């Protein structure tokens, strides 16, 4: 993974209102064990390919794909690594060093802000503008 590698994250249907994604988008959920999953953009190839994998292989829902880079995570003290499990392009952003829930919320919010500035990497054709 290079510093400029894009890390794709899918936005859940519930976390989009009036085309604005929630700051929770990059926040680890309970099943993430402090390490939310992302796609390594260099391996999956494109945001659209990650969408196809997410919705057709994993059968999960997505209203679109946002991305941050490995270096943006690193600047915030969040190591991002490709682990290749359970699929080759699988990567994680590591929040486990965060000491408080507030810190996790703040850093996840910062990543979402950066991703929004970068704009949607992919939106399915039937998604609202």
């Amino acid at each position, binding site marked *: 993974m290079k510093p400029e590698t894009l890390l794709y994250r899918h936005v*859940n*249907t*519930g*976390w989009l*209102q*009036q085309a*604005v994604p*929630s*700051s*929770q988008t990059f926040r680890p*959920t*309970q*099943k993430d064990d402090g390490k939310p999953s992302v796609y390594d953009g260099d391996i999956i190839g494109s945001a659209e390919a990650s969408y196809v994998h997410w919705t057709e292989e994993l059968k*999960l*829902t997505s209203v679109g794909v946002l991305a941050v880079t490995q270096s943006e995570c690193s600047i915030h003290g969040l190591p991002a690594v490709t682990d290749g499990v359970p699929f080759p392009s699988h990567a994680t952003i590591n929040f486990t060093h965060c000491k408080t*829930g*507030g810190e996790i*919320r*703040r850093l996840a*919010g910062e990543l979402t*802000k950066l991703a929004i500035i970068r704009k949607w990497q992919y939106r399915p054709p039937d998604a609202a503008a």
Partner: protein
Amino acid sequence: MSEVEFLKPRLDGPRFRDHAIPLDVLKDLAAFEEFLISVAKTEWLKDHPTRRRTPRGFMSDVAVKLKGVEEGSAILVLTAFIASTTPLIPNAISPQQAYLQRASEAILEAVSAAETGGSPTDSLPAKTLAYFDRFGRGLRDGESITFNRGDGISPARLTPQTRRRLVLAAPGVTFITDDAVRRGTVVDTNDADRTFTIRLATGQEVKAPLPPEHRDAILDAQREAPSGIRIAVHGVGRFNRSEKLVGFDGVEDITPLEPLDVPARLDELQLLKAGWLDGGGKAPNAISLEKLGQLFTDYYPNELPLPYTFPTENGGVQFEWRINEATPEIEIDLPSFRGEWLSGDDEATFDLTSAEGWAGLADRVASLVATILNEEIA
């Protein structure tokens, strides 16, 4: 003309704490007067079994008036004015007054029975229970009207729940009306029937009368429905025995909604099922969402920007504001309504069941708005 103070019901609930009576509750009192007189006539007929109707004009010169509001949440002083009869015997009560008192005792006995699991029809004819469809309709959850009944007798307490039991105690009654607010898109207007139809977040379509004074707003909303414009309809809703709204009997107000309207968004969140978040994610509790919407409506200042509203993994709700570069948020646990505020390094906790908690939240948002405005001016 005689004047008799005969009932002093006490209104309890947040809206009555300043000893004031909202005008919509006064409609209930008007219904109560009709109710009393109807039951008084029934009592007279009980005493005169050979008569099929009451004497002409019986009770027509009786008026129940609100004479004052006393302190103690809000205590209403209800006085009967009886125009025509001054008893010939000093200190005797007129027949009208006697039947009025019996009517009030019968009504309060029925309320008490409904509250304690008894049978309201033991004290009131079933057909008169329909008056409870109007009397008490203005009460909201958590509010009540308490009637003291003299020494040794427990007070009778009318709540939205006891009112419902009373209305549905009458045989053949399948619907109950109640104050209702519903939000949705206008999908149809029918000038011939003078009705319009809104589609709620659940997909249910509900028909309502088309009030001439709101016709233009409703037509505008219908035109703009494809772009997601919604309205709030406030009126008298008709509910079935399962408490499902089946239609509006009357419309009092129509309000076009902002795209970020919070209660409308909370309606949508009620549709989330467990597992909504990639297999995880707890479904938010519908009652808590309703309550949050009401609290937001009651306490969040209109002049402040509306937040985006999102579900949280644990079945709560997160409000997120976009105030230029600032992106404050508050994560609200349900059903505790404890809110964890976060804006940059600023963290705070608010109890959002209380007016103070909402005031604290509003202060934080207002302060950020003021900072942005000052920066823009500078």
